[in-house]
């Protein structure tokens, strides 16, 4: 099934800080729900190992994440794909950052697709769960941004 991904998030941090966080594999690893490992494969390309868990539902995934079409510090495209015991998924989203008086506004939009087992038996709740996972990502990102720069 297809998922529309899109929304707006605001951050207290300045645009450069948000930009660098989003381009930092160490930060991404902390923010991507269930991310166990992120192994660099090339420029802005990483292998992902996920152990995803939402309430009782969970499974392991292997996949890839890549960043492209970068226009620092405001625009970038993120592509994620993975497959595992629960099924498979891909997602491509573009985000743009705009400086705000008290931080940064992020607009993002794109499309995801989920197939395999969860699509076959769990469509009823899949969108809600996906939304929650995206929310988790931003919650974690905020936490990372709030942490002192290492």
């Amino acid at each position, binding site marked *: 099934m297809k998922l529309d991904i899109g929304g707006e998030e605001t951050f207290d941090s300045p645009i450069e800080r948000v930009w660098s966080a989003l381009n930092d594999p160490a930060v991404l690893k902390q923010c991507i729900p269930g991310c166990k490992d992120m192994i660099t494969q090339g420029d802005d390309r990483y292998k992902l190992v996920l152990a995803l868990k939402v309430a009782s539902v969970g499974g392991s995934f292997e996949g890839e994440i890549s960043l492209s079409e970068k226009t620092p510090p405001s625009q970038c495209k993120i592509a994620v794909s993975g497959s595992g015991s629960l099924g*498979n998924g891909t997602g491509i989203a573009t985000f743009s950052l705009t400086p705000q008086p008290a931080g940064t506004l992020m607009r993002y939009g794109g499309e995801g*697709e989920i197939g395999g*087992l969860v699509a*076959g038996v769990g469509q009823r709740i899949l969108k809600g769960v996906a939304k929650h996972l995206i929310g988790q990502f931003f919650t974690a990102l905020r936490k990372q941004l709030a942490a002192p720069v290492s």
Partner: protein
Amino acid sequence: MSETSRFTFVSTQRRVREDRRFVVGKGNFVADIDVPNMKHVALVTCPYPAARIKSIDKNAALAMAGVHYVLDGAELAQGTLPLMTGLDTPNVPRRPLAVDIARYAGEWVVAVVADSRALAEDAADAVRIDYEKLPFVLDAEMAMEKDSVLVHQAHGSNVLLDKTFTWGEVDKDFAAAPRHLKLRVKWGRSSTVPIETFGVVTSWDPWREILDVWASIQMPRYNDQIGSALKVPVSSVRVHYDVDVGGSYGVKRGIKHTVLCGYLSRRLGFPVRLIEDRLENMRGGDAHGPERLFDVEAAYGDDGVIHSMKMRALENVGAYAGRSPFQLGKPVGAIVGPYRIKSVQYRAVAVVTNKTTQEAVRGFGQSPTNVAIERVVDEVANTLGLDPMDVRRRNLIRTEDFPYTIPSGTTYDSGDYLALIDKVLAHTSYEELKKKRDALRAQGMLAGIGIAAALEPSGGNATFEALLNPNVTTSTFMDSCRIAVDGLGSITATMHTTSSGQGHETLVGTVIGEVLGLDPELVRVVRPDSLNSLPSGTPVGSRMAIMLGGAAFEAAQKLKTKLTAIGAHDLGIPPERAVYERGEVYDRNAPDKRIKWADLVQIAHRNYHRMPPDMEPGLAVSHVMQVPTGGKLPTADGRVQMYPCTSFEFHMILVTIDPALGRPEIALYRIGHDCGTVINPKIVRGMTMGGIAHGIGAALYEEFAYDPEGQMIAQSFMDYLLPSSHEVPPVEIIHQVTPSPNTVLGQKGSGESGYLGAPAAIANAVNDALKPLGISINTLPLRASVLGDMIAEATAKKAS
């Protein structure tokens, strides 16, 4: 049933002998078969609607304790031949495991063998397959387009079959008719979905060179197909027919499962078992049913008389074709339904798409076709402002018209459609029903009456094969029965196929008992294995009452004749003077001169000197039955006698819909049913009720729905909705018996009854309910949400 007096046992309310073992849980289902040292198979399926298999990493799975083997499609293809298909489509090969390319989400790619099913599933999880996603097509009309993605590149097109038949002067009749209408009807992809999934156990004995097969099967020529695909003589395949099948209604055809297991057990040297789990069954069991798009045109007069019809039926068969495209062929034998339509043009199109493969479903394409026909009849009435009941009366074939030959060449055997309709209406007044409907409407409910008249062609032959594939020359389709009386006089009859709930043992016992005038309970009925069997089909095509019943009848007649001859000889009278009655033979002229059963048996078994000269000793007879009226191939213009018998059913129902919710509820259900002589009333009633329930499912709830990305999203019973006891209303059946002249007892088929008219009646009722809003729907299943949205929109439009 006024005809019962003709019979002693037939048509009487007798118990069904199979039931005793089922109520105590002692059925012999395939999952109950326990073969020593048996291992278990689980499957790895493709998650994408189309994908190239780039690599398969089996190492992690093979390294697990208790795992014996991981089989891929390439190896299996080396060792086996492709599965049999019906059409000549050599570039659309079908195999148990995908080779190079997987063509639907859920297709089997790898089979894992382990000590237990749980371990096999653990190992299946550990198999890593690298795929390259490929473009796919799901929609049948899109698949027909020239620039469509191809499901099978080598075939060059997605069209497997596109054949147009013209029977009669269609153009002339259309030109002459003052009125025409066009209608598009969609039948959603559903199936029979038995509660028992498909299962198979195979065991190869290399010293005897025999493959033993126990399967939950309902498949003609099953052993032939196993032998062919595994490249062993069919005499090396021993299919055990004494396996109880937990429901089938057409779909239990697991040939791919069997070839897979047969290969594995030969390769590995131990028995293997594959019992589909529900997910495997739903997505990759290749047991989906028709998904059909009808475009129908009718030419008719101001009086509602339909003169001619054009129908295009477009079938989305899924990724591979077994026999499923033939489901476009069977309806040719009843293409005008119960109506006197003079001419017909029929275009049958089958396309492949990236969906799960289909199998035969109850009615073999007839029920969807009946929806199309019956919707057209209702629309004819609508356009003329006539009552649909009146329009039917004007078009129905009359009893004096029988035998009646329809434009496509089949002769309907017998019927009295109007009489049965009158019986139903005498039971439940149509005028009262209309008043009830109108009263509900006055209270703000949507309410509609649905009527449907439908035929059940029965006694199945395979003529549709030759009709759709001229290279097929199959013209016979047999069933057999053997009767042996042992040395102490007990009777044992054999039947030579599995059974899936139709009560065949009871059928055989009843018919033999009737002919021999002996209590049917005295007749033991067994099912030997395929190596001990006479040629037989299976309970497909609503044929067993006619074919197995016929074979049992004829075999019993042979036995009776032999007993009479023995008796006459022993009594020293000419055979024509001897009378057989209830196991004894007496002299017509001196009824006290009689010889008893035990003595007849004694003579046949041990006193050859008292036998008529040259007569075989013993009391063993058999009969191989050919389909009555069968045996001819189609003419050049595609006319052919299809099934020998046509049962008739007339449904009249009342449906209510709360306009705010859109959920249809069946408030009243009446059916008139005529399947000729009823052999066992309890069985026929059950079949009809079950068929109606199945029809309710297809009309309202059941669909193997796909999302636009090619995922089948009704894989569990939480999304594929089978009717429960709440969804099936009380049904009253009004019986009529119009015997068939083509069968031994006047019987016709009833295995598909109810199902053939229920969806049409429901579709008509829902449309009648929607009529005051000026809207209509011709897409099944009729989901509450879709109806609710339509009703809301129409209501808003009306208000504004």
